[in-house]
C-alpha cells in the first residue's frame, strides 16, 4: 500500500497521454497549466495556514486566545482576512513613481514563488528540478530585496525609505552566511542538484552525517534564514514601533496583501530549504543500524510529503518561538552579528567540513 502522491501524478500523466495520443506538446501544455495552478493554490493555502498558525502560536506565548470569532477556533479567520484585503481600496499616492510602486509587490511575489517552485515536497513532487537547483533557489530568492528596495524608494515617504535601506543592508549581508552554510552542506553532499542531495540523505540526514560542522552550519542557517525573512528579532525593515510599517507603509489592499503573503511564504521557503539541505527533505527518519530495521520500515510507511511538511512546520514553529521571545536588534548590532560573528564562523566551519569530507573520502578508499 502506497500513499505517495507521485502515483496520482503519473496516473494523470498516463491518462493524458492516452487521451491526446500523438500530440505530446498538448500533454506538456496541459501539465504545465495544471502544475502552475497546483503551485499557486498550494502557495495561497499555505499562506493562509501559516497566518493562522502564527496568530494562534503568538497568542499562546502571550497567554491570549488569538482569533476565535470566525469559524470554530477561528479557523476561517485568514479566509475572512483574505476577502477583506481583496475588497480594500488600493490607495494611490500623488507624487511617486507609479510604475515602480506597483512593480515592487510583484517582484517580491515573483521571487518567493520562484523559490517555492523549486521546493521538493515529496518523492517525485518537484516543480523545478535541474542540476544547479540550490544555486537557482539562492539566486531567485534574492529578487525579493529588489522588490523591497523599490517599494521603499517609490513610496515617497521617509519612513519607507529608511526601512528599505535597512532591508537592503540586512538581506545582502545575511544572504552571505546563509549561502555559505548551505554551501557547506553542498560540500558534504557533493552535488548542487536538490534531488541528489536528498537522495544522499536516505540513510541518515546530513545534519547527522556532517557531525559538528553540520550542526554549526544548521544553527547559522537558521539565524541567517530567519533574518532573511525579515521577521522576529530581525524585523528592522518593518520595525513597527520605529518606522510604522517600514517599506510597505504606503501600500494598501491587495498590493499590501502581496507583501504579507510573501512574508509568510518566505518563512515556509526558508524552512523548506533548511529541511531539504539539513533534515533530509522528504526522506523519513532512519536509524542506520541493523537492529533498527523494523523502526525504519515503520517510518517508511509515512508518506514522503508528510515528512517534508512535518519537518518544515517544526522549523516554522521554532522560528515563531524565537520571533515572539526576543526584542529587535539595532542596525549596527545586526551587521555586527553577521559580519563579525556569523560569517567568520561559517567560513571556518566550511573549512572544517572540507576536512571532514576529505577524511571520509580517505577512509572509503
Amino acid at each position: 500500500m502506497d500513499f505517495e502522491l507521485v502515483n496520482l501524478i503519473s496516473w494523470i500523466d498516463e491518462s493524458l497521454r492516452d487521451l491526446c495520443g500523438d500530440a505530446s506538446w498538448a500533454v506538456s501544455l496541459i501539465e504545465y497549466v495544471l502544475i502552475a495552478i497546483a503551485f499557486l493554490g498550494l502557495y495561497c493555502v499555505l499562506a493562509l495556514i501559516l497566518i493562522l498558525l502564527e496568530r494562534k502560536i503568538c497568542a499562546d506565548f502571550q497567554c491570549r486566545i488569538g482569533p476565535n470569532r470566525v469559524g470554530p477556533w477561528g479557523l476561517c479567520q485568514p479566509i475572512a482576512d483574505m476577502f477583506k484585503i481583496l475588497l480594500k481600496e488600493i490607495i494611490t499616492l500623488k507624487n511617486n513613481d507609479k510604475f515602480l510602486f506597483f512593480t515592487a509587490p510583484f517582484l517580491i511575489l515573483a521571487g518567493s514563488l520562484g523559490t517555492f517552485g523549486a521546493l521538493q515536497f515529496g518523492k517525485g513532487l518537484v516543480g523545478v528540478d535541474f542540476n544547479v537547483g540550490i544555486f537557482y533557489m539562492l539566486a531567485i530568492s534574492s529578487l525579493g530585496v529588489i522588490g523591497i528596495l523599490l517599494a521603499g524608494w517609490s513610496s515617497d515617504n521617509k519612513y519607507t525609505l529608511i526601512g528599505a535601506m535597512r532591508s537592503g543592508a540586512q538581506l545582502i549581508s545575511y544572504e552571505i552566511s546563509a549561502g555559505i552554510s548551505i554551501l557547506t552542506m553542498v560540500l558534504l553532499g557533493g552535488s548542487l542538484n536538490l534531488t541528489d542531495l536528498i537522495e544522499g540523505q536516505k540513510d541518515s540526514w546530513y545534519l547527522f552525517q556532517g557531525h559538528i560542522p553540520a550542526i554549526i552550519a544548521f544553527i547559522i542557517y537558521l539565524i541567517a534564514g530567519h533574518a532573511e525573512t525579515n521577521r522576529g528579532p530581525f524585523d528592522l525593515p518593518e520595525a513597527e514601533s520605529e518606522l510604522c510599517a517600514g517599506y510597505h507603509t504606503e501600500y494598501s489592499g491587495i498590493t499590501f496583501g502581496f507583501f504579507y503573503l510573501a512574508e509568510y511564504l518566505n518563512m515556509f521557503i526558508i524552512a523548506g530549504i533548511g529541511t531539504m539541505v539539513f533534515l533530509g527533505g522528504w526522506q523519513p527518519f532512519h536509524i542506520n543500524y541493523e537492529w533498527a530495521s523494523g523502526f525504519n520500515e515503520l517510518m517508511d510507511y509515512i508518506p514522503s510529503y508528510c515528512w517534508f511538511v512535518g519537518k518544515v512546520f517544526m522549523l516554522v514553529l521554532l522560528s515563531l518561538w524565537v520571533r515572539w521571545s526576543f526584542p529587535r536588534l539595532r542596525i549596527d548590532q545586526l551587521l555586527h552579528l553577521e559580519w563579525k560573528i556569523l560569517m567568520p564562523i561559517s567560513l571556518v566551519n566550511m573549512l572544517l567540513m572540507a576536512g571532514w569530507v576529505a577524511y571520509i573520502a580517505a577512509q572509503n578508499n
Partner: protein
Amino acid sequence: MEKTLKLIQSLSSTAEKVEAMDFTVAVAKDDLRKVAEKLKAEGWDYLINLTAVDNQENIEVVYHLSKSSDMEKLLVLKTKTEDMQNPIVETVCDLWESAGLYEREAYDFFGIRFLNNPDMRRLFLRPDWVGYPFRKDYDNTPNEKFSTSVHDVASMENVPSITLNHHGEIEEKNVNLFDNDEYIVNFGPQHPSTHGVLHLRISLDGENVKKIDPHFGYIHRGIEKMMESMTYPQMLFLTERLDYLCGSINRHALCMCVEKAMNIEVPKRAVYIRTIFDELNRIASHLLGWACMCNDMGSITSFIYGFRDREKIMDIFQETCGGRLMVNYYVIGGVAQDLHPNTVNRIKEFIPYLREMIKEYHTLFTGNPIARDRMTNCGFLSKEKAVALGMSGPNGRASGWHCDVRKVAPYAAYGEVNFDEVLHKGGDTIDRYMIRLEEIEQSLRIIEQLIDKLPDGDFKAKVPAIVKVPAGEYYQRVENARGDFGVYIKSTGEKSPYRIKFRSPSMVAVSGLDPICKGTKVADLIMIGGSLDYVIPCIDR
C-alpha cells in the same frame, strides 16, 4: 534660609520676604538676573517650576527653586512686571536649562517675552493663535472665524527671539531651526511609539539623529484654565487626566495642597490608604512603562505580560474605587470610600505574584543579550545635565541624583515606612530601565509594611460643604511615577483658584530627548523615549 534672604537683599535692596507657606522672596524685575545668577552659584541649581500669574494690574513670574544636594529646601522667587501690553522679563534659561520650555509656556499663555531666550515660539498653541488665553482679560468666546487650516511647516521652524543690542535697545530676531538641506522626519503626532500625541521633528543623518525639536499641544485641553472656573472638589477629576498612568498620585498632590492650605487633618487610615494606593499606582505605571519600553524595542510578548500583570492592579482599583484608570478615589480630606473588604486580601495575594513575575521579566528581557547590548552605553545622561534639565524621578535617580520626594520631603505615610531609594550611577538607558523594575520591588515593600498596620477609624475628615482655600499661594510636591510632580495654587479666598499650575515631570523628560539622543540611531531614540517614560497629556495639560 535667612542667610539666603540676606544674600538676596545684599544684591537687591528692594527684595523683601513675602508671607506665604513656603519661603518666598519678591525681587524687582531688573534685579532678577543678578539674584538668579548668585543663587545658582550658591547651589540652588534645580529649578522646579516656573509659573506666570496674571494679577490684572501686573504679571508675576514665580520661580520655585531647590538644591539638588538638599532637595528638601524650597525657595520661591517672585518678580513682576507692570507692563501689561508688552511684558518683558530677563531669561534664566542659560542658568537652568529647564527654564527654556517653561518660559515658552509663559509666553504662550501670558505673552511674557523673555529677553535672551533663544527660542520664543509658542509651546502649546498654534503659531497663528491670537491672544494669550491665561490672561484674565482674554476673550474666550468661540471664534467662528478661526481658521482650521493646516499651518505651514515653515512657521514651526521659524524661531523668534529678542535680545538687547549694544545700544540697550530691544532687537527682534528670527532664525530657522533647520537648514534647508537637512533630512527632517516628522515623528508623530501619529506614531506607534510616541506614547501619546507627541510630535518630534528629527533631523537625520542616515540613521543617526542630529537634532530633535519637540512640538507639544496636540492634546492640550486647557485643564489649568478650566480649573479656574471650577470648585475644588470639581476639579479633582481633571488631575487624573493629566498623567493618566498615575492619576491617583496627581490627585493626591492637589488634595494635599488644598488640605495644607485649609489646615485639614486627614485621618490616619485615609493617609495609609492613600499611600498604599499611590504605590499600587506607581507599580501599575512602572509596569506599563516597562511593557511599553519592551514594545518599543520590539518585544511584543513582554508588552503583553506587563499589561497582564497590571490588570491585577486595575482589578484592585476597581473593586475599591469603582474605576479602573480614572479611579476618582481621593477627595479633599480623605478618600471617597473605605477599602472594600476583599481589597486587603487581593493586595496580599498580588505581592508574591508580582515578585515571581518580576523574576520572569528579568530572565525574559533584562537577561536577553540583544536587549542588554542595545541598552548599555546608549543614551547617557550625566547627573549635572539631569539636574540642569530638572529631570527628577526615576530618570534622575538613574543618573545618581538623590531626588526622591518621598525621601527628601516625606509626605503621607512615607516617613513611617522603610524603603530604599533606588539609585544608579550609570545614567544609561539600562539604568533607567532597571530602576523601574527595582522601584516596583520597593513599592511592594512599602505596601507590605502598610497593609498590616492599617489603622481603624475614619476614612474621611470633616470638610466644609463649600471648600474655600484661604488667600495665598501654596505649592505641594509629590513623587509621581515620573518624578517631581507639583501643584501650585494661588487663591484669593474664593471657591475656585485664581491660578493653578501643575509641574509636569514628563515635560522635562521630553526636553531631555535632544541632548540625550544626539548622535544615536533612530532605533535608540525610540528606546530612549521608552526609557524616559513620558506621558504626553501631562505635558500638554
